[in-house]
């Protein structure tokens, strides 16, 4: 049952026939795990909190840095030096006290993800590197959780929802990470500050749709966003029956840390 205050807070949701009080209760009962509290994670956390997602797990070992503030809008200048998960929790507590933020001030690893992920209904990708993305993709497949994918670089972004066998997983589309030098990181090449906002909101929209069970999620579609041209390409993507993790005969059936070493990164300094 929604309280009078919740009925007022979520009135604009409740008015929607596709949501109603019942849908709002689904949101309040939902548990979403967010990997990364940075560029993509910021808008996802803000909007899922506003929407009333009842439990939001946030996983990030980083502290807030001045260079983050150009795009990581959940953090503010006074938060510099603070753990990002703490900054997220403080902001979300102010936006919506209905949301229980569970902080995981650690990086996702093959050891901690099996303990954490099964407690959640779905996982949202705010990853900033390939190793973590492949780890979370594989984990989501193994633990059968929908994975709301998003990634950005410079002026471009990608988004999808991975939920095999309904559609592909990340490895079906990109079987391997790029070699050093092929694709730069934001740290090397930069990223337009507004871009993770654009992609993060797409991810938040997909997460809400999945929780409510409405609309057409991006399952089986890869959305490619060209921010400079403001063009959106919808590419069809299918499950690869020979995929090592979601295929008919998977070879990746558990998470092993050695499969996710940060070996494949762009060249250049890792130091700020």
């Amino acid at each position, binding site marked *: 049952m929604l309280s009078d205050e919740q009925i007022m807070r979520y009135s604009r949701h409740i008015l929607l026939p596709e949501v109603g009080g019942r849908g709002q209760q689904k949101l309040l009962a939902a548990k979403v795990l967010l990997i990364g509290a*940075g*560029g*993509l994670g910021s808008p996802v956390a803000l909007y899922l909190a506003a929407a009333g997602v009842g439990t939001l797990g946030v996983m990030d070992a980083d502290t807030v840095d001045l260079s983050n503030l150009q795009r990581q809008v959940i953090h503010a200048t006074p938060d510099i030096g603070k753990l990002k998960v703490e900054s997220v929790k403080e902001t979300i507590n102010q936006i919506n006290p209905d949301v229980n933020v569970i902080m995981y001030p650690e990086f996702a690893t093959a050891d901690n993800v099996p303990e954490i992920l099964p407690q959640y209904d779905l996982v949202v990708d705010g*990853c*900033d*590197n*390939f190793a973590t*993305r492949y780890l979370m993709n594989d984990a989501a497949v193994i633990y059968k959780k929908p994975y709301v994918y998003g*990634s*950005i*670089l*410079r*002026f*471009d*972004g*990608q988004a999808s929802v991975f939920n095999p066998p309904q559609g592909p997983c990340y490895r*079906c*589309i*990109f*079987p*391997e*990470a*790029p*070699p050093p030098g*092929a*694709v*730069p*990181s*934001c*740290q*090397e*090449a930069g*990223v337009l500050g507004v871009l*993770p906002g654009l992609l993060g909101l797409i991810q938040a929209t997909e997460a809400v749709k999945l929780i409510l069970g409405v609309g057409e999620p991006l399952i089986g579609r*890869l959305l*490619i966003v*060209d921010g*400079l*041209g403001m063009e959106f*390409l*919808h*590419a*069809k*993507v*299918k499950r*690869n029956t020979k995929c090592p993790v979601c295929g008919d005969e998977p070879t990746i059936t558990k998470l092993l840390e050695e499969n996710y070493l*940060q070996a494949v*990164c*762009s060249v*250049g*300094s*890792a130091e700020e």
Partner: protein
Amino acid sequence: MTIYLPTPLRRHAGGAREIEVSGKTVRDIFIGLKDSHPALAEQLWDDSANDLKKYLSVFINDENIRNLQGPDTPVSGKDVISVIPAIAGGSI
């Protein structure tokens, strides 16, 4: 026909968003890039595997060639070939 390059790959093609190419199949086109755009070809084509590099997904219009005939997928004049790399943003 046209190859569309997203921004992470444009630096290998002198900043071009689109390049004009010719060929009867995807394979023809990418092998042809070795002459016309060698820096780009090096990033996209794996000679030892005789295939596109595994960090790319290539679409003809909106269809993934992995769901068609792979690099042997035929192409025609009006097709737009999009070469989409895996991206991860962030830091190293």
